């Protein structure tokens, strides 16, 4: 059994139009099981675009994403949705919780969508996840009754609910204060330590430094961070990302 959880080969994402833009330009990357990878880069460098491609939220113009040994380029949109539901967990910069639902209902959403567990088992797992993230007493609260950090932790619990092999997080601490940032990053670290693969896009070099590996993106390509600080966005950024 391979130790590679996720692999991208020759990944290209191009936006066609009157003026075409290349957001991701021939990226090859492999991420091992249980590895915590931070993707960094200046604004507009293509790091979020890369993350969406790796998490099958977006389809590449060229190249292949292999998730747990399964090539995905020929999958239909429904099949890609199934892979996202069962193998990937998403955390975004904004929590994106359904506002009319309680924290617990939001956590249960992916499990209910998968429909593989009884309602009782789902509820047990949902409460267990919330408790593990320090939200036991907030299960019945709606998102507008929670703080920013609490919401983001609910979003992490939701991402974990179907026991995915890979957690994909796009600037998960981007909208949080320092204390919440530290807490959320610690949780992601713990998730990686528990054997799941975590890929995080972040602007924060200090947080990125705490990952197992840092992948620096410039102009849609992997750059060597040892070359020094990334150029200013207006000098490098193509459209998108």
């Amino acid at each position, binding site marked *: 059994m391979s130790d590679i959880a996720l692999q991208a080969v020759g990944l290209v994402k191009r936006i066609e139009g009157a003026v075409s833009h290349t957001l991701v330009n021939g990226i090859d990357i492999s991420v091992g099981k249980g590895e915590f990878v931070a993707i960094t880069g200046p604004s507009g460098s293509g790091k979020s675009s890369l993350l*969406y491609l790796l998490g099958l939220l977006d389809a590449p113009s060229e190249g292949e994403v292999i998730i747990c040994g399964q090539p995905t380029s020929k999958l239909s949109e429904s099949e890609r*949705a199934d892979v996202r539901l069962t193998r990937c967990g998403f955390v*975004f910069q904004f929590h994106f919780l359904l506002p009319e639902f309680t924290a617990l209902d939001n956590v249960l959403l992916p499990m*209910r*969508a998968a429909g593989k567990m009884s309602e009782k088992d789902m509820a047990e797992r949902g409460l267990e996840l919330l408790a593990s993230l320090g939200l036991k007493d907030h299960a019945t609260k709606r998102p507008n009754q929670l703080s920013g950090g609490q919401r983001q932790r609910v979003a992490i619990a939701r991402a974990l609910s179907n026991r995915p092999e890979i957690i994909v997080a796009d*600037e998960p601490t981007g909208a949080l204060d320092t204390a919440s940032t530290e807490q959320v990053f610690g949780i992601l670290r713990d998730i990686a330590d528990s054997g799941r693969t975590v890929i995080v896009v972040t602007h924060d070099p200090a947080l990125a430094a705490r990952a197992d590996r840092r992948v620096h993106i410039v102009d849609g390509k992997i750059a060597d961070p040892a070359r020094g600080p990334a150029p200013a966005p207006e000098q490098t950024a193509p459209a998108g990302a």
Partner: protein
Amino acid sequence: MTSNLLFNIAWTHVTSRVRQTLVGMAGVAMGVGFTIMMAGLMQGSQIDFLHQLVDTMPHVTVQDERRAAPSQPAEQAYGAVQVSDVANLNNRPGIKNPETVMASLRSWLPGDVAPSARTTAIIDHGGGRIGVTLVGIDPRLEVKVSKLASQMREGQVGDLARAPNAIIIGEALAEKLGLKAGNTVSVIGGQGNEVTASVVGLFRSGLKRIDEGQIYSLMSFAQLMMGQSGVVNELRIRLNDPLGAQRIATQVEAQTGYKSVSWQEANADLLSTFSVRDFIVLTVMGAMLLTSSFATYNIISTITHEKRQDIAIMKSLGMREYAVRRIFIIEAAIIGAVGIIAGWLLGYALCYGWSKITIYNMLTGAKVPLQIYYSPMHYIVAGGVSLVCCTGAAFFPARKATRVHPVEIIRGAS
């Protein structure tokens, strides 16, 4: 994908927008309610009119004529012949052996048959002369084939036999000529013979052309006015099931050879007008239901617009496009279903309310209640069509909203 989840999300969406949801439900309820009321009213008035029509006239009339002109002896003798201006003066009008024919019909007919002698005459009274159809009847048999007895406003059908040359006339005709029961009038037959008759009763059928243009007498009186003693030129049949009249008429015509006209055939033009009216009414009701579904379209459009971010996140979590689309279809179905139930109640209340309204008939001077026909089919059809319209109205905004790529929304929100 569990249906419970989809229903749960849909239910949450509609219950968290109470005002919008109520407006949508009210729109559906109005459409369904007024459609039911309109259907009940239109069908009620139509059925009432048909009842009046059917009650006023025989269900089948056997006339002393043929569908096609009888062939001439010369035509029977030669292969090709041209005949013109031929009149058989020896031919006696009327149905041959009427008693035998009636006995034969009674043996199988699901109803009864009575003879009559129909002719035209002029009533002369006080300087007024009005042409009428004079129908000679047998009072004992007539009551079995017509509602004349129940239509009598003064006197009785049997009174025809209690006075010489007695006639029964319509109320409208009596009013026109200034006649009352007990008055005498002059009746002038087609042969020019004038007889003094006494009015022994007044009837009202509800149909103006009958009430103004038809009078009844004994058979012998009508035969006298025709100048043909003993002639019976019409058999009047009343059936247990008026709707089977067309089939029975065909059978009677095949048996007797005489032209047999069902009430449907006699009123074919009118019934065809009803068909046109039904089509117009159905079109209007369909338009009402369709229009009411636009409220649902509007609400689902608003919800899908507001919920673009939720749609994106549900898709990004792995929910399939069709499943997300179903959420909004279910929302429309919830709005539709509750609106339909409210519409049923509204429709019933409107029908009940309208049935209490009376309309003043300027021609007859009577106050006529609006006739409402209550039928479960109205409720089922209005509800079914409305539900289809609502879910159909939701389909298009839902499809448009769920086709949006989640990355576009997530990027926009970020």
